């Protein structure tokens, strides 16, 4: 086995197939499936390489797994590889979601369906609350980080300001704050 994974070449159909399976299996969070497929089953990346790629995808904006499909596809088979991985990942979930949307549109005025969706939506809110709590929990230790999170919360949830301009102001300030804290240590 060669350790020079950079020179490795993966056929388009393998990239498509690998990400297609991830797309189908990825119920409620795709990361565990992505890791399983990329590292354990197909051995496209070592655990360390996977973590590095994940860090990049988390560092930049955009959905993480989609970023991963693009970066991995490009690395192993150029632009065509990126497209094969992306379409593999998106094909089944998009078809399923549109089909669900069509069914929903058909029955949305039925009282039972309406109530089912109201219940589903309330449970989905609970899911987002949990996601938020899990993301916020590690910040508790730092007053500065809690303050930055609180400002972002108030700007978006309370004042309902447009996110684009707000982020253009908040991002540099948050980075500046992080930099100043580092200097004070």
């Amino acid at each position, binding site marked *: 086995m060669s350790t020079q994974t950079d020179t490795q070449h993966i056929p388009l159909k393998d990239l498509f197939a690998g990400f297609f399976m991830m*797309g*189908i299996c*990825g*119920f*409620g969070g795709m990361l565990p499936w992505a890791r399983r497929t990329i590292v354990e089953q197909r051995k496209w990346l070592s655990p360390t390489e996977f973590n590095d790629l994940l860090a*990049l995808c*988390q*560092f*930049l*904006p*955009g*959905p*993480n797994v*989609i970023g991963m499909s*693009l*970066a991995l596809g*490009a690395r192993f088979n150029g632009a065509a590889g990126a497209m094969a991985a*992306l379409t593999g990942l998106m094909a*089944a*979930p998009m078809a399923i*979601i*549109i089909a*669900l*949307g069509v069914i929903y549109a058909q029955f949305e005025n039925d009282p*039972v*369906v309406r*109530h089912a*969706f*109201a*219940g*589903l*939506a*309330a*449970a*989905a*809110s*609970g*899911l*987002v609350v949990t*996601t*938020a709590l899990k*993301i*916020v929990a590690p*910040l508790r230790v730092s007053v500065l*980080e809690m303050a*930055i*999170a609180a400002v*972002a*919360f108030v700007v*978006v*949830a309370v004042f309902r300001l447009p*996110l684009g301009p707000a*982020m253009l102001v*908040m*991002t540099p300030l*948050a*980075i500046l704050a*992080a*930099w100043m804290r*580092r200097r004070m240590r």
Partner: protein
Amino acid sequence: MDNLLALAIIYGQLSLLAFGGGNAVIGEMQRQVVDVHGWMSAREFVALYALAQAAPGPNMLIASLVGWRVAGFSGAMVATASMIAPAGVLLLSVSAVWFRFKDAPWRRIIQAGITPLTAGLVMAASAILCQVTTVNLRYAILTAAAALVLWRTKLHPLIVLAAGAALGAAGLLD
């Protein structure tokens, strides 16, 4: 045509703002789709969001669904492509230099600043969604119970979502 252009602009912007994944921009997406463009009611948006959560795949599929509701198949394609392309191009350009600067101090500083921002945005999204889905006290209890179960146990999210839908369908919430 106007709607397709509007979808492209909205989702192109959200693509570059989605630090830490799709949940960070759900609040802004709701503001644009419901308040600014009036394409659907807040409850309808949340129903689509719930649908996207219940389906497999990346959680940004809400973009495809909103696009489809607004402008049919072409709307779904435009919204999805706009949500992917800007961030994707940025990622591919940066990945070339990324590994060289992996341990550079400035990288850690930027990350340290952005992480709490994202946390605040996801908190905001959850507050906005809860506000819409909480029709009465029973819905509030359902949301709280779902959050608690998902936080404290390893129960699969899909089971919790299905339970919520079942309670609603059985008429136990109204």
